[in-house]
């Protein structure tokens, strides 16, 4: 079996194996083994990719193509470039960390892990798809398990949040579907065979009228999961209600599907539509960036803070994509990765803190640095990463975005760029506010003195996510070079 | 073919019949009278078929045969409907259409 299909097969096999397990111990062990294999495969893929790339300069490598539905020219068509490889690594890491974080989940563990693994399958499939149809199929497979994950294992207004999240995302995907169909039926204006294959569609130019019509559909379809204002409202409620591992996976990986899809589908296939609509969506994304940050300032629930912060950070991804140059795009990809690791880390930590203090309200806590120093210090580090401290991944990403944004010299882009840059101050405000209130200060509750220290599986989860955050931040060159190479064919279509 | 009667007059008749039947169906309270109205509707069609056959395509007797089948089926339909109405009567001692409104919304 080829190296990419395994990424779908292994989770499915894991899920099937899980069916035969009993109890938490077996379930988590099975999942861990499956996901460890997956993680190893992901790391291996990076090396394999470099090796393959040296010999092969096609846009996608490791391609494989099987006819599926001949009538519609639907293929099972897979392949990766650097961006998908990185996204796969991100996914593998976050999922594995998520398994460790859910080590002690006691309610219906088997079902939990199965659903989680199905979700992961969808994500992997999405990242390796070249065919729009399979891409869409995997997208939905990735989204729908969220309903169960939040609904069954969530907390707070979980039913409401789960329903809202599912409906908004599926609604968006429905709009996306129309966009995809539009692309499909214009994929060969000269009367040849219609196709869903991204690379083939990129060879033809879709009529401008069609681009104008279908770009916003495709864009909004993807941008909703990327939490573009004003379609982001599923995200705060969803994150707040979801169990820890799910928040991690969702914010860390699932929301990345948005940016990835915009990049891979909306912009690549509809370049003129992109140019036509870019002003409008730039405004939306900038509103998202600033607004998410400002709204986060006001929140007290840790998860809400993080959710709004995600709105802000991912708004930056969309903003960067709309800047339409290589620097900004590199930044967008880096920001996706960085935000993935960092937010997952954040949610993991919030889960750990919640598991100990039984509250997520920052003002109710205090002085945690003293009682759970390890978790608290990592929280500070994650916070610093979030506010874009040099040496952490966020900085590298943001700088690329800003540098890319500044390549536009007209006033509109300038003003928008400056607004986006301003958001980093606001980010500092809300991060430090939480750190100050929750981790520092006097201890408000005597019970806190007996909080458990961090356990080994929590440590593993933390390190899995922390290492990439710092790694990217310290040595970004190879990564940005890797991304740069793969961006080229895409950017060339737009300029 | 009837002397001095054109197809238009006959079709007007059937149309009127059709609407009378429809009106009856919509306004009667008694299930049996509603059933009668259905018969009117069906009869309108039956006459239609015969008339069309006779006036327009007199070579082949398709319409006439069709009308015979309609009459037969209508009989079966009525028989079935009446049996169910009787069943309703047994349960509710009434054949008022208002008795059949328990399931709604």
């Amino acid at each position, binding site marked *: 079996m080829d190296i990419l299909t395994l990424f779908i097969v292994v989770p499915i096999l894991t899920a099937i194996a899980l069916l035969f397990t009993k109890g938490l111990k077996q379930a988590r062990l099975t999942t861990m083994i499956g996901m460890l294999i997956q993680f190893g495969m992901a790391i291996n893929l990076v090396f394999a990719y470099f090796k393959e790339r040296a010999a092969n300069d096609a846009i996608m490598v490791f391609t494989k193509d099987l006819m599926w539905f001949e009538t519609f020219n639907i293929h099972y068509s897979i392949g990766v470039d650097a961006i998908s490889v990185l996204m796969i690594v991100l996914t593998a890491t976050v999922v594995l960390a998520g398994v460790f974080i859910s080590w002690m989940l006691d309610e219906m563990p088997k079902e939990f892990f199965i659903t989680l693994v199905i979700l992961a399958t969808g994500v992997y499939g999405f990242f390796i798809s070249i065919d729009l149809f399979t891409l869409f199929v995997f997208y939905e497979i990735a989204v729908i398990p969220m309903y169960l994950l939040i609904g069954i294992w969530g907390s707070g207004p979980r039913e409401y949040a789960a329903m809202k999240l599912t409906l908004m995302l599926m609604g968006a995907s429905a709009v996306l579907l129309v966009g995809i169909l539009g692309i499909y039926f214009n994929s060969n204006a000269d009367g040849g065979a219609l196709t869903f294959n991204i690379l083939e569609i990129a060879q033809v130019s879709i009529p401008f009228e069609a681009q104008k019509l279908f770009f916003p559909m495709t864009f909004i379809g993807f941008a909703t999961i990327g939490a573009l204002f004003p379609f982001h409202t599923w995200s705060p409620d969803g994150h707040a209600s979801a169990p820890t591992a799910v928040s991690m996976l969702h914010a860390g990986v699932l929301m990345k599907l948005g940016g990835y899809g915009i990049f891979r589908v909306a912009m690549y296939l509809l370049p003129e539509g992109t140019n036509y609509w870019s002003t409008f969506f730039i405004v939306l994304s900038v509103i998202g960036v600033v607004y998410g940050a400002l*709204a986060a300032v006001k929140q007290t629930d840790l998860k809400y803070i993080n959710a709004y912060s995600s709105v802000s950070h991912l708004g930056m991804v969309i903003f960067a994509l709309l800047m339409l140059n290589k620097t900004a795009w590199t930044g967008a990809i880096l920001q996706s990765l960085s935000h993935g690791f960092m937010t997952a880390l954040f949610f993991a930590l919030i889960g750990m803190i919640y598991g100990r203090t039984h509250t997520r309200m920052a003002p109710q806590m205090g002085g945690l640095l003293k009682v759970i120093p390890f978790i608290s210090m990592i929280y500070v580090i994650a916070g610093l990463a979030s506010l874009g401290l*040099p*040496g952490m991944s966020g900085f590298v990403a943001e700088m690329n975005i800003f540098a890319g944004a500044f390549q536009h010299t007209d006033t509109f882009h300038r003003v928008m760029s400056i607004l986006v840059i301003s958001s980093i101050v606001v980010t500092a405000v809300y991060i430090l506010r939480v750190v100050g209130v929750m981790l*520092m200060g006097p201890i408000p509750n005597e019970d806190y003195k007996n909080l458990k220290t961090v356990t080994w599986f929590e440590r593993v989860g933390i390190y899995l996510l922390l290492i990439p955050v710092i790694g990217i931040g310290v040595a970004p*060159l190879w990564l940005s070079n890797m991304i740069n190479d793969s961006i080229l064919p895409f950017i060339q279509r737009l300029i | 073919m009837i002397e001095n009667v054109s197809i238009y007059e006959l079709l007007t008749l059937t149309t009127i019949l059709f609407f009378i039947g429809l009106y009856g169906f919509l306004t009667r309270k008694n299930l049996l009278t509603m059933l009668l109205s259905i018969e009117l509707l069906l009869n309108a069609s039956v006459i239609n078929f015969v008339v069309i056959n006779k006036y327009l395509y007199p070579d082949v007797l398709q319409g006439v045969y069709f009308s015979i089948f309609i009459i037969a089926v209508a009989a079966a339909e009525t028989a079935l409907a009446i049996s169910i109405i009787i069943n309703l009567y047994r349960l509710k001692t009434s054949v008022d*259409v208002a008795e059949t409104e328990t399931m709604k919304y």
Partner: protein
Amino acid sequence: MNFSYTIFILIIPIATFLLLGFFYNRIKPAVSGWIGVTALSVVAGLSYYTAYQYFFNVGKIDGKFQTFFGFQANWMNFTENLRIDMGILLDPISIMMLVVVSTISLMAHIYSRGYMKGDRGYTKFFAFLSLFTFAMMGLVVATNLFQIYIFWELVGVSSYLLIGFYYEKPSAVAAAKKAFIVTRFADLGFLIGILLMGYYGGSFDFMELNNPEGPAIMNWASTSFMGLSVITWALILMFVGGAGKSAMLPFHIWLPDAMEGPTPVSALIHAATMVVAGVYLVARMFPMFHFVEDGFALHVVAWVGAISSLFAAFIALTQKDIKRVLAFSTMSQIGYMMLALGVSKYDGHEGLGYMASMWHLFTHAMFKALLFLGAGSVIHAVHSNYLKDMGGLRKYMPITNITFLIAALSISGFPLTAGFFSKDEILVAAFEHNKAIYFITLFVAGLTAFYMFRLYFGIFWGKKKEYEHTPHESPWSMTIPLLFLAFMSIATGYLPFSEWVTADHKALHGHIGLFSNLGVIHWDMAGIAITAGLLGIAIAWFFYKKPTDYPAKVSAAFGRLYKWAFNKFYFDEVYLFVTKQIIFKRISTPFAWFDKKVVDGTMDGIGNTTVSLSKVIKGTQSGRIQDYAFAFAGGVFVLVLIVIYMI
């Protein structure tokens, strides 16, 4: 000459940080203290060696100091042309800064071994100090704007961590947060400036940007915005960043609060090294500041510096917390450095201000660190920060007393101390180029002398207080740094600075350099300055040597002015108003509300409308056959009508 060993100046502190940080709960405090001190000693040794090599052996070629690279690596590329390198750039000012940072840091390390003894976070403290040292070193040796920005932020975060070191104290937490956010806000300007510079100047690299014949300087006029060159805007924005770090108006508000941190931190970061980063930045970019648009940006620098120094001096007169007095004094002195840079030109003697600024930076680092450490020693002894709890300490703490006096004399510009030389160079530079600024400077010199001696007399003389615990001299670990710095506070005045550190890297005839050019001292200029200083000291002597009621009378006489100065001209309140009332209440809260009610409400509304629509139409399914039949027949007719009329 191969300077590649200088990489260890960066590696050693970060390694120390990682070592102490990872094993903070396994290493014994005593050991970690020694690790820190040893590491820093090595770093200081390397720095001194580098300085020696550079200034005395290899640095000067053809009468001009050359620039060396100790290390250079590509870190990230934005575009083909716009790349970010990480490297070590060695030229006079960076080497001077290496010496300053390593010296003060080493002193702070040694001092902390005594000062922090018994603290829970002893190891952590040393780890953070190492982190800071690393970041500061990285900042000073930066080869390009982006590197400086990166380390700039890292310095900021280590400052944050150190100010908030006593994290259980809410005031410390608030101060740390304030320091970080205010400087970050200013850094926003810096970042935008850098990006603008990158795109209009074509590079981030100092060597390319600062080349007087390079494209960046030659083409400054190519694009303009609101009447000024974009490059000027970039420079001004970068200066905003510098002003934030260096606590210039109006970003100074974090500095007094930052005194919540442990005193060695105040000495190291908030007096000697980090706060002068802004000055260093301007000095680093000096050719650009000077050449672009006839130095418009430099005028901004000069005036901001001058006003800040005056403003801070006023506030320093009134403060009661000794560390805050010192903090405002720091701000005032940094204003000096800024204005000196601001009035400077590039070539030859015209570049006097530049030299003076750097020199003052150097001497100020010594005596201000000394003042802080001395204050720390006093605080350590009396367990209070407030002047009212002190007095007559000269008997109990002789070493502290003497060293503090030396530092106070130095800062007041008392003849033959280091401060005298460097400050008078500033005065000369100001006099030559901008009279208005000169008078401000002179006035501030007098004020400085007055408030420093108010402090000195208030602490060591004045009323004899009864102390609960008899104060005693601090341990050797704390007094050795004091003595060393006291020595430096005098000795650094006799360095031939004007030969070493100048704008164009060529030697320059200073006025008051002892070994270089004592002969041409301008005694007229110096005399005025000395008079101003002595006047300040005399008034302080008169007011504070013994408890008198003059201070109260004077402050009453100034009335409102005194009150304003005492409340720091209400800057904090304005900021608080802007953040709490405007940003939080007027912007953030409505945004959160908007999100909840309007955006989210719309989405929920769509759902709710659908559901209620479903309720509204439920009546059509009435359960009546005849209604159904009517709908059926009606449907047919409507369809017929539509179809027939639409086609």
